[in-house]
């Protein structure tokens, strides 16, 4: 049966739409000219300028510190939440489910303003600690949802089998449940990490003077800085993400 060509055309145009702006940005990071439409030859000077800026490194350090710690904590909390939601059916779990689910649909800015007012009401100074708390709060729900999806395919008779064979709770947890859930927990962790590294809006509300993260730095550069230097920084970040995604993609392909 003959098929319409229209979906193909939309797909191709869509891909151009997705990648054209990114491509222009990467090319311009190597442009000696300050203006994007004039090519004045290949140059790495914007990269030099970028590497000479110590505030970028400080921001990167903050970002990584917060992302790693928030990811680890949200992986633990999210996995527990998913387990509880899957295993039990009760009023408590209904409330729990609403509590886990609502942050997913809450606009970022709301969570930001809420936490800002909360921290200032308790007179907690804004620093990396408050950003960490905020990031864990929005990451928990994502981890929980990813692990919950994984649990839906989980065969609980394995646990009963282990019990029948005399395993205690800890053995079951460490030798049966966690190894089988590991891919789901890791996938949730990866999602949490990338959300934390990339979060701007919530972080903007709960960060203090000394706790600038990379997205906050990029934002102030977009507002007040030199465009070519941001191009250079963006190119490096894009390379890092593409590499990470490609690696995880290849790893998954190998597994299956």
């Amino acid at each position: 049966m003959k098929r319409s060509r229209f979906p193909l055309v939309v797909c191709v145009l869509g891909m151009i739409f997705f990648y054209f702006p990114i491509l222009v940005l990467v090319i311009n990071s190597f442009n000696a000219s300050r203006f994007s439409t004039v090519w004045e030859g290949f140059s790495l000077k914007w990269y030099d300028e970028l590497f000479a800026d110590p505030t970028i490194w400080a921001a990167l350090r903050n970002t990584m510190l917060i992302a790693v710690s928030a990811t680890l904590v949200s992986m633990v909390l999210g996995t527990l939440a998913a387990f509880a939601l899957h295993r039990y059916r009760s009023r408590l779990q209904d409330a729990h489910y609403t509590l886990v689910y609502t942050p997913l649909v809450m606009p970022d800015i709301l969570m930001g303003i809420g936490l800002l007012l909360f921290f200032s009401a308790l007179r907690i100074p804004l620093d990396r600690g408050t950003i960490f708390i905020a990031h864990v709060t929005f990451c928990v729900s994502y981890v929980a949802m990813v692990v919950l999806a994984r649990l839906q395919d989980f065969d609980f008779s394995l646990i009963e089998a282990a019990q029948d064979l005399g395993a205690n709770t800890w053995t079951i947890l460490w030798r049966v449940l966690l190894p089988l859930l590991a891919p789901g927990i890791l996938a949730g962790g990866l999602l949490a990490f990338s959300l934390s590294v990339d979060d701007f809006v919530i972080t903007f509300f709960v960060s203090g003077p000394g706790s600038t993260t990379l997205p906050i730095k990029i934002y102030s550069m977009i507002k007040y800085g030199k465009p070519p230097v941001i191009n250079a920084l963006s190119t490096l970040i894009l390379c890092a993400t593409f590499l990470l995604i490609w690696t995880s993609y290849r790893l998954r392909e190998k597994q299956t």
Partner: protein
Amino acid sequence: MSSTTLPGNNLARLNRRRRLQEWLVTLPSFIWLLAFFLVPTLIVLAITFKPVEPPYGNIGPGWTLATLHSLANPNYPAIIWRTVWVSLIATILCMLIAIPFGYYMARAPQSRKSLLVILVMLPFWTSFLIRIFAWKILLHPEGYLHKFLRLLGLIQEGDLLLYNTGAVLLVLVYTYLPFAILPVYAAAEKFDFALCEAAQDLGCNRLSAFVRIFLPGIQRALVTAALVVFIPALGSYVIPDIVGGNASEMIGNKIAQRIFVDRNLPHASGLAALLALSTVIPMLFILAIQRQQARAPAPRRNRSTP
């Protein structure tokens, strides 16, 4: 359950233990979200009903409805209205692209499918700010797009592509399109296209088979796709902030302005509460329906959408 075979008092003990276990695994996330999500949200709602203390826009003592009254002043309804229609148009545009896009992906040869998925996912994983910035550069009067459109004679030297509602819409679609494509693709992949062919054999033309068989078949995914664009679009703050102008401000920008610029915490809270109600109420409604369906006595449930 093996516990039903045990004698009575053992059963009670087992039930108690099960209850305790439930609390133990539930409490960590429950308490965290209660303290850092529910309480802050309730604070926002509460501050809406607090008066402003003049010099610094802080929260004064007592309770008042002044903020609610001030939300009716001519300034706010215009912004609320704009936020809603900009989000609606962005959602419609995303759906119009996502449906054929997802359809094509689902019907592509198996070898090409995973590549297409990766290509759609990649922009989603790359930095949000960087993608907005890329458009700012393109739309800039010194940018390629501006130059190209000038060459075509579509715009004049002095015309601005940036800092208007069109730019906000464009970048909203750019940012949220992958979110709309993925659920459509996921549902289309499971859809049995033989149904469309059967409809065509029975005399339906291609388009009406698509509209009357395919689209109803992926109905749930279409709702998901529309919501994952519409809800974040309602709360958007950064996009109008970077590529929008004064005439394309959205609720998010007003909230930030009331906090950081002309400090007025009750006003900021009032707007935030309005935003919360307009996004959370429809979501909770859908959630309740989903949960009810999940409660139905089907031992294994298959979800068509993530």
